[in-house]
């Protein structure tokens, strides 16, 4: 009998094994590769012989051969074996392949060739990825939690680049190449109505240098009548050699296209991280198994980082165990305590709502004040003018700075469990940040549609806002510029001095303040805020995606330098997977909030008559029905039918039915899984019981026989599977070989 090191040896060093138990299929499938493959096959052959002799092993052998067959279909590198064994497998397969018919051979060889091609193209794509070296460095120093932030930044750079290419290709390129391809453009006519008066904003006469800077920072002056803003695209149709290019239609469709593209890409990205879905109702991210088995980042190379990671793991485990105890405490609350807590929460939530309302009101007021001051055009002072221009941005940034601090203080009194506290504060901050942009836009709109004589002649205030889309574009441009400046300024003027202070000054204040922590949620909210502005603003300012691409590109390097030099990892780690979910979730909320203003302005507001591609239409949306009415009648009726109410209602009903079916299916699966789990436990107990009886019977019969087995009392199988630790009657669990070198 061969020495199989999977078996324990008993204390005297001899191997005992139970031939009957060797045949158990579960044991066979758990065999590790220990020795070289030759010995392994010998062992398998010998066990097969044993099976054959006992007669009851037919089923067992067929299971084994079926398993081996299954393994034979998979590519070799997916087998968990050593290199030497894999080589042997490969030669074995090649020999078998020679026996196959030529058709099969050809098929196999094409499969392998295609697979190799696919692998090589993937390798090429991987090598083209942006910032691989930097990300590898960060990974080694900080682990995968913070890394997910940088992956997110890279994703946004790519997204903005693609959006810019879309806008450039369909809107700007036709206009640019007209003189080179000898096309003919029809411009939107200035037909003399009062609505179509567009005073030029170019500066005349002697221009002082700082006015150029004001223009650059505010998007006015010399920048207003450029490709940057909506107002410049006054083209109606372009006649190329064989086709007429309808620019307003292209503009509208490109807007819809980039919103749809962003949605699809984000959803696809979040889905790939979520392939294995919830089967039970446990919280995937707070699961202990996830933290223990997947807890260590194997990519950490820095000694210091490893020590910090250990500390943070310890802290996290302790907090989670503490949280379990708190949950128990919460469940044990008396009724009186519960009423008190609910009352406190109600008051505090009202307070939070009040604070939010106050912030929104101040944003509204600041916007109106800023717009009025710009309209009055009183140029007092360079700096004061800039401040007035940027007043809405400043107010929004201040509000977004104060409210998170306020929320984190309030949440302490609301007595939630720690994990929920973090999430709830985050939700409030997200809501605050993203809604402030929408409030800004709606206050702008209230200004634009407010005329001295009610109702407005052109649908908007044509005296003050002859080209209102450009004004909104300018506001979005200003927000983006200000956001970039703030991020750079905070890093340079707050984080670096803080690090220097903490390093060189030893007083108590600096010790309490401590080194900067890289707070992932706040950083992510910053860039999602910027991205929401970009989505809203691209309709009014087609070059904004390019500006945002450059902005995120620079932010990557700023954040990387700041991280490496100034920051220490957060005490409570942010897990990579839950980060991914959080980032993409917040981004989706931003996208949804961005679609709202764009939809309102396209469908509800009268487009300005003095500039832009939609001069000939009352509302921007009208270009679509006009184009449809020019299509051939068959297509027309089809499109009209698709947009009718009958189709929409039936589509909605069908979607609801499909959703109910899927939900019912999921519920049925859950039930089946629970049943199977219970069955497994039962089967396990059955097996345990039967093995016990079997071993008892064996030991009895061995005792009866007269063969001098000195280990008769030790005929116990030192069975290595899960039952070994649970045997107690008549079975001995042999201790592992003392000189086993596989111990740590």
């Amino acid at each position, binding site marked *: 009998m061969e020495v199989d090191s*999977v078996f324990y040896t008993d204390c005297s060093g001899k191997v005992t094994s139970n031939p009957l138990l060797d045949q158990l299929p579960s044991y066979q499938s*758990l065999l*590790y590769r220990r020795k070289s493959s030759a010995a392994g096959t010998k062992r398998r052959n010998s066990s097969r012989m044993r099976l054959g002799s006992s007669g009851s092993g037919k089923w067992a052998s067929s299971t084994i051969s079926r398993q081996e067959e299954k393994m034979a279909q998979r590519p*070799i*590198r*997916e087998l*968990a074996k*050593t*290199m030497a064994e894999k080589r042997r497998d*490969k030669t074995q397969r090649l020999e078998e392949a020679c026996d196959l018919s030529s058709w099969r051979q050809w098929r196999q060889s094409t499969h392998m060739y295609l697979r190799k091609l696919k692998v090589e193209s*993937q*390798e090429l794509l991987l*090598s083209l990825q942006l910032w691989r070296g930097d990300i*590898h460095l960060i990974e080694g120093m900080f682990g*995968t939690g913070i890394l997910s932030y940088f992956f997110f930044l890279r994703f946004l750079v790519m997204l903005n680049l693609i959006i810019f290419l879309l806008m450039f290709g369909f809107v700007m390129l036709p206009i640019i190449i007209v003189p080179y391809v000898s096309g003919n453009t029809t411009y939107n006519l200035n037909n003399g109505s009062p609505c179509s008066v567009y005073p030029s904003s170019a500066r005349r006469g002697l221009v002082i240098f700082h006015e150029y800077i004001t223009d650059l920072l505010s998007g006015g002056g010399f920048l207003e009548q450029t490709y940057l803003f909506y107002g410049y695209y006054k083209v109606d149709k372009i006649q190329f050699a064989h086709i007429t290019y309808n620019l307003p239609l292209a503009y509208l469709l490109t807007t819809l296209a980039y919103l749809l593209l962003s949605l699809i890409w984000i959803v696809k990205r979040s889905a790939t*991280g979520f392939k*294995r879905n919830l089967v039970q109702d*446990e919280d*995937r991210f707070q*699961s*202990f*198994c*996830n933290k*223990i*088995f*997947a*807890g*260590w*980042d*194997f*990519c*950490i*190379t*820095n*000694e210091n980082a*490893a020590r910090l990671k250990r*500390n943070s*793991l*310890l802290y996290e*485990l*302790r907090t989670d*165990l503490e949280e*379990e105890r708190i949950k128990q405490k919460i469940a044990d609350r008396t009724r009186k305590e519960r009423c008190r807590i609910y009352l406190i929460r109600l008051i505090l939530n009202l307070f939070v709502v009040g604070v939010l309302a106050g912030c929104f009101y101040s944003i509204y007021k600041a916007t109106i004040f800023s717009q009025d001051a710009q309209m009055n055009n009183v140029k007092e002072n360079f700096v004061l003018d800039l401040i007035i221009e940027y007043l809405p941005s400043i107010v929004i940034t201040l509000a977004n700075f104060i409210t998170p601090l306020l929320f984190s203080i309030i949440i302490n009194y609301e007595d939630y469990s720690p994990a929920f506290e973090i999430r709830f504060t985050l939700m409030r901050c997200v809501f605050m940040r993203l809604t402030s942009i929408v409030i800004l836009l709606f206050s702008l709109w209230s200004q634009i549609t407010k005329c001295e004589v009610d109702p407005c002649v052109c649908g908007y205030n044509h005296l003050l806002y002859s080209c209102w889309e450009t004004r909104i574009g300018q506001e979005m441009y200003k927000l983006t510029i200000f956001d970039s400046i703030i991020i750079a300024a905070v890093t340079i003027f707050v984080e670096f001095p803080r690090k220097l202070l903490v390093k060189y000054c030893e007083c108590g204040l600096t010790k309490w303040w401590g080194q900067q922590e890289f707070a992932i949620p706040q950083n992510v909210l910053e860039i999602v805020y910027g991205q929401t502005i970009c989505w809203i603003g691209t309709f009014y300012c087609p070059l904004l995606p390019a500006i945002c691409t450059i902005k995120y590109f620079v932010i990557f390097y700023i954040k990387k330098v700041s991280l490496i030099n100034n920051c220490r990892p957060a005490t409570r780690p942010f*897990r*990579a997977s*839950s980060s991914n979910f959080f980032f993409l979730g917040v981004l989706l909320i931003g996208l949804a909030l961005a679609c709202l203003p764009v939809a309102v302005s396209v469908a509800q507001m009268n487009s300005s008559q003095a500039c832009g591609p939609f001069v000939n239409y009352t509302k921007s949306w009208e270009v679509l029905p006009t184009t449809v009415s020019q299509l051939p009648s068959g297509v027309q009726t089809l499109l009209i039918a698709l947009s009718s109410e009958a189709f929409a209602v039936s589509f909605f009903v069908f979607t609801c039915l499909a959703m109910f079916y899927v939900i019912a299916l999921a519920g049925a699966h859950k039930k089946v899984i629970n049943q199977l*789990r219970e069955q*497994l*436990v039962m089967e*396990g107990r059955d097996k345990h019981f039967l093995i016990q009886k079997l071993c008892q019977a064996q030991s009895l019969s061995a005792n009866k026989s007269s063969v001098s087995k000195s280990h008769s009392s030790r005929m116990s199988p030192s069975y*290595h*599977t*899960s039952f*070994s*630790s*649970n045997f107690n009657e008549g079975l001995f669990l042999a201790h*592992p070989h003392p000189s086993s*070198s*596989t111990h*740590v």
Partner: protein
Amino acid sequence: MGTTASKLGKDLLSEYQELTFLTKQEILCAHKRFTELLTKDEKDLPNARVPMERILTLPELKSNPFRERICHVFSTSEDKDGSLTFEDFLDLLSAFSDSATLEIKSHYAFRIFDFDDDGTLDRGDLEKLVNCLTGETDDTRLTPEEMRQLISNILEESDIDKDGTVNLSEFQHVISRSPDFVSSFKIVL
């Protein structure tokens, strides 16, 4: 076989590409790093075996609490001393690479966490695992009470047949539902 020659043969390179999850660049990089670990005499030997102490000087393994277990699991030496040949090293990198399947990773993770090599993760294994994660000194360990609570939580989540240990299928099942595993079980040179 010439695996420690200064340059890898083209055939050998493509064979390694086929048998592992590594790309050509990664195999060449691994070869370079491995030859740096060899002494002058060993460089001439085919299939040189590097002892565990030298392998553990690699920065990727130096700060890893499981470094010795990793060497033992991937070692094919007869003496079970954790020494690795170049092919063992490639196997190691392949299992830890980006493109390795979840099955391979969970199989090797199970073997790494199985400190007493008995084929299951029982309470002793889990306790050693947690201690590796949090640190070896006394003030970085969990109290016995916390440890007991933690291990019973883990077993509750992962032990399906309720026998008090986690076997390979149960481990693979719980890993398949763990969202962090694939991104954390990775070593790239």
